[in-house]
């Protein structure tokens, strides 16, 4: 990404220490235009600054991060969300992705990777951490229990293509997009389009009632 200017970012996290840490680490790689520590302040900050990317904590004091995504989506469709969380509880991740976030990374991500993820989300790509890739593979691999096969709006959305599965597997193994492109003999742009397509399916599919799947997986 050779963006002319660094992406404008709003940080939403209830830990001030974490916000200042991220702000200091990212330094000049992004332009932090606002910070917020809860759902309502976040919505106000986003409305006021209209950033490129919102770095959104999945857990906020007055509810999940998906509330922010849902509130802003209608008025500011161009704002993109990158979910960030300390937990890997599948239901949290799936909920915020289904609300419309363009990607998900854990808080243990390295600074360079985080800056890269922000740039990619700003450019319209989807960013999957290796764990999210694992969740998605799991959710789409699971065959529905007999008796709960619901007719879906679009059967296309209900499964991943072989190529998408391949890409997700490599992401889960820690490959970067560039490495995946080399491994599969395709262009990095194609890798990105596969991931975006998976994201779309994740957001639109009714298969297995993903959210419920995620909640149950936690108990397993």
């Amino acid at each position: 990404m050779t963006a002319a200017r660094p992406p404008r970012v709003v940080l939403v996290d209830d830990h001030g220490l974490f916000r200042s840490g991220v702000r200091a680490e990212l330094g000049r790689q992004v332009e932090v235009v606002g910070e917020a520590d809860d759902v309502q302040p976040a919505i106000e900050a986003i409305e006021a600054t209209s950033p490129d990317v919102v770095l959104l904590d999945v857990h906020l004091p007055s509810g999940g991060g998906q509330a922010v995504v849902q509130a802003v989506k209608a008025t500011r469709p161009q704002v993109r969300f990158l979910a960030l969380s300390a937990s890997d509880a599948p239901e949290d991740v799936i909920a915020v992705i289904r609300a419309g976030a363009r990607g998900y990374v854990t808080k243990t991500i390295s600074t360079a990777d985080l800056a890269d993820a922000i740039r990619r989300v700003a450019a319209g790509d989807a960013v999957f951490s290796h764990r999210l890739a694992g969740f998605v593979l799991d959710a789409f691999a699971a065959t529905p229990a007999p008796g709960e096969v619901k007719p879906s709006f679009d059967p296309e959305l209900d499964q991943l293509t072989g190529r998408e599965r391949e890409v997700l597997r490599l992401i889960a193994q820690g490959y970067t997009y560039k490495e995946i492109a080399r491994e599969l003999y395709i262009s990095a742009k194609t890798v990105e389009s596969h991931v975006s397509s998976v994201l779309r399916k994740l957001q639109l599919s009714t298969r297995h009632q993903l959210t419920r799947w995620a909640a149950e997986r936690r108990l397993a």
Partner: protein
Amino acid sequence: MRQTERWRHDPVPPRWHRGPPWLRRGSGGPLRRDPADRLAGGVAAGVAAWRGVSVTAVRVVFAVLAVVTWGLGVAVYVAAWLLIPAAGADGSIAGKARSDARGIRLAAGLGSLLIVVLLSLGALGDGWFVGWAWPQVFSVAGLVLIWRNAPADERATLRRLVEPLEQAAGSPAGSAAGEGTRAGRRGPALRIAVACVLLVAGAGLLFSRHESLALLRPLGGAVLVIAGIVVLLGPWWLRIARDLVLERQARVRAEERADIAARIHDSVLQTLALIQRRADDPHKVVQLARMQERELRSWLFEGRAPHQADADMTLAAGVRQIQQDVEASYGVPVEAVTVGDCQLDESLDALLAAAREATVNAAKWSGADAVSLFAEVEPAEVSVVVRDRGRGFDPEAVPADRKGLAESVHGRMARRGGTAAVSTAPGEGTKVTLTMPRAGTSSRADTASRA
């Protein structure tokens, strides 16, 4: 040190009084009422914990006994409540009442006062009233003793039981009180009035001597009396039921909190203390933090207690085990992702052993700052990919003594019908792909049951 002190004085209820679940089946300890899990006095819960049977079963038996013995069971229950000490308390209510000299004096005083009143009433010639009221003397004296010696929370329950009497007594006076509360008081006053009318009408029917009502009398009278009682006491019953539910929820929450506090203390606080002591060794600090993170994560999001023994280990648990062990031994982060899950069998044990070898190799030799460990359960096969971005090696140039490792991975897989593929080159990192066919279709497809 201050930390430990504060901890000890934390108002967390002692956890031992219920014990861990595996101990609660037939505790073998002394019989104790369990106030933490009570509907009335906690006798049933106590018996259940003592004999190691289901609380619900004991409650049903108690209820049936109370009905078939015409209420004698209730008296036995009350006696049990008085005689069996509550768990965590130092004596039974009856035992405490015996040694409560002030209480006994108070009870004797109240009793004798009542006797004086009754004797004077008797002198006025109302024999029936006196005959009916004599037992009350003993009841009042007994209640005073019970009241003084019951634990605080049971006292609150007793107080709730006599509440409607207070309310009924207080309402005439209350309706005369300030204008502001008038509307609020009208409801209960109206209810009591309606109930009184119903009760009087019911009693009238029951005791009426009118011949034409002879057939209707028992039925209609009883219905009216019951309706009166329901109108009078219904809302209060509802409130008691609701309060009981709320109280139980509060108790459960308190217990959960105590449980979490104990866990955090055992794990996070200990690790933080260790980290403070090792602050000069960044490598060790990172390792401790990662271990703690993983432990906390598996407890919070997978409901597994730290170091919980896995009787029926699954593939995902095995992968997690490899991750923990390698991180602990070599200090290299292992990024593990598992897709699907299934029970282990012999060939999958071999797969995990090979995966462990490969992961240890990557952590030991590659020099990479992280190893990725990916496992996927598919209907026909299970595959594991161990990958690092380290220095890699030239497979042809590996010395003979080190080739043995690769052989052990290869050999292990091959013996069970699996395959192992190593792709590496100097400077390119290493990728070990292990594939094992799944034994038969009978093996449990956990992914399917989860969908």
